[in-house]
């Protein structure tokens, strides 16, 4: 072993983070050694608190420090529309848009028989319960436009259809501000498929 135990443990911990390889981990660990003790303590506390104090909202599944989360408990938001997304990060992306004033439901994954993930392994059953209780009249399915995301959206729409709730799927096609000539064939054909009358 080239490193004393405390630092090799720190290096080990950094390697567990995504996108950090052995070399970067060594660099980060040695950087920490040169930091002020107060800063290191703050850093450590931030890590622990993020883990301890954040839970998943019991209503929508979004990450939150209070239950229900700030979006679910916000009375000014439209409770008749729910936007279904795959991941908490998708909620943040949607919120940045500042256009959507409804509520969310986070699935935490997609249905994938290949990986042994069925509807009951992701946040689907709570969604169905939620639709029974609340006064929801529109469901927007915003899972990713790939095979699994598409399948998950279709699955939910089949379950919900009989209840008469309006269901929509987000559009896919050309990015705004982009050039038509740079779009790939698949995106272009999707954009043609989803064209609308003016």
């Amino acid at each position, binding site marked *: 072993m080239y490193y004393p135990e405390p630092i090799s443990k720190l290096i080990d911990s950094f390697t567990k983070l995504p996108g950090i390889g052995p070399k970067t981990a060594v660099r980060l660990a040695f950087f920490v050694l040169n930091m002020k003790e107060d800063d290191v303590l703050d850093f450590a506390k931030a890590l622990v608190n993020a883990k301890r104090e954040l839970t998943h909202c019991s209503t929508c599944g979004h990450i939150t420090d209070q239950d229900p989360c700030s979006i679910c408990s916000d009375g000014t938001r439209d409770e008749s529309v729910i936007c279904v997304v795959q991941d908490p990060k998708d909620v943040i992306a949607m919120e940045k848009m500042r256009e959507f004033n409804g509520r969310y439901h986070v699935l935490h994954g997609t*249905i*994938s*028989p*290949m990986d*042994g993930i*069925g*509807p009951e392994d992701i946040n689907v059953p709570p969604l169905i319960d939620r639709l029974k209780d609340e006064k929801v009249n529109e469901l927007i399915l915003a899972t990713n436009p790939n*095979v*699994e995301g*598409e*399948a998950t959206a*279709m*699955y939910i729409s*089949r*379950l919900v259809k009989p209840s008469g709730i309006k269901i929509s799927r987000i559009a896919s096609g050309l990015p705004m501000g982009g050039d038509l000539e740079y779009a*790939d*064939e*698949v995106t272009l*054909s999707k954009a043609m498929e989803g064209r609308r009358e003016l």
Partner: protein
Amino acid sequence: MHIKDIKLTHYRNYEKLDLTFDHQVNVIIGENAQGKTNLMEAIYVLAFSKSYRTSKDKELINWDENYARIEGTVHKRARQFPLEMQFSAKGKKAKLNHLEQQRLSDYIGALNVVMFAPEDLNLVKGSPQIRRRFIDMEIGQIQPIYIYHLGQYQKIVKQRNHLLKQLQRRKTSDETMLDVLTDQLVEHARVIIAKRFIFLELLREAATGIHEGISQHSETLSIQYSTPLDVLESDSEEKIGKCLHETFKDNREKEIDRGSTLFGPHRDDLLFYVNDRDVQTYGSQGQQRTTALSLKLAEIELIKREVGEYPVLLLDDVLSELDRHRQSHLLDTIQGKVQTFVSTTSVSDIKHQTIEQAALFNVTSGTITKQK
């Protein structure tokens, strides 16, 4: 179109190589394991940015070196432009006209190549998989979006098979997901089948005439799409989709019982008939080879139709596999039209005008010399 010259650096067993080619026929002569096929492969890689022999680009780099480069000058539509492929531990770079192409799909297609290797003779008698790959590759070269549908389709089949297995073993009883995956599957399957039908019509048009020529009007080739689905080649995409839906509905129990997707383009096949007899089962070896040859020559014609110029033809060790009659028909067909690279161990048993006029290259352990 033709390749004017090629330069190899650290490519397989070639340390450095610089060759200028004839715009018609080039014969590469050498004993086994000297580097004939490596040169053929290099031309193939220059066209498709990857090898047909390996999926690992690393293998293309000379054992003692850390990068490999293929450069070539292509003459196409009265213009000349350089192509370059570079492989290193960091990955590969494709340059067209000295400009690096970010998307390989922008690079592929600059040089069109058709390869005919001994294993292509198995096209007729080999497994259905070989024929499906043949048809998929051909359509993909002409329509890139076909590759997308095929990729999505294969992914969905995999998901669906896993689900069917779970249903078979009663690990789940949720058939709604099966409906969803069936819908998704049909969405892509109907496009794939419809595009295959269109392509088949073109292939038929080109191949039957060629086959008649090779067989001196004694044989008539016909090609059929073999599928258990109740569809006609004239059917629209919608109609094919409807038929797929009905088939999956009627066979739900059976599919769950077997735990596998039993219908769709991944189970279909091509059937070849000569004089109304199934060549795969009843044809002689000679008829099977003639059919394979007709299909490959048809491929050249189809690319000519699509691109406006004949592609470059690579005949890797395949000429010696054909009898004299088929040899001369093949050489007659390409004569004066198609730039062709022939690799062979000996040129003495090929008697044909094109070979006599061809540029000859001798290969010995990684060096090539042009015969005067």
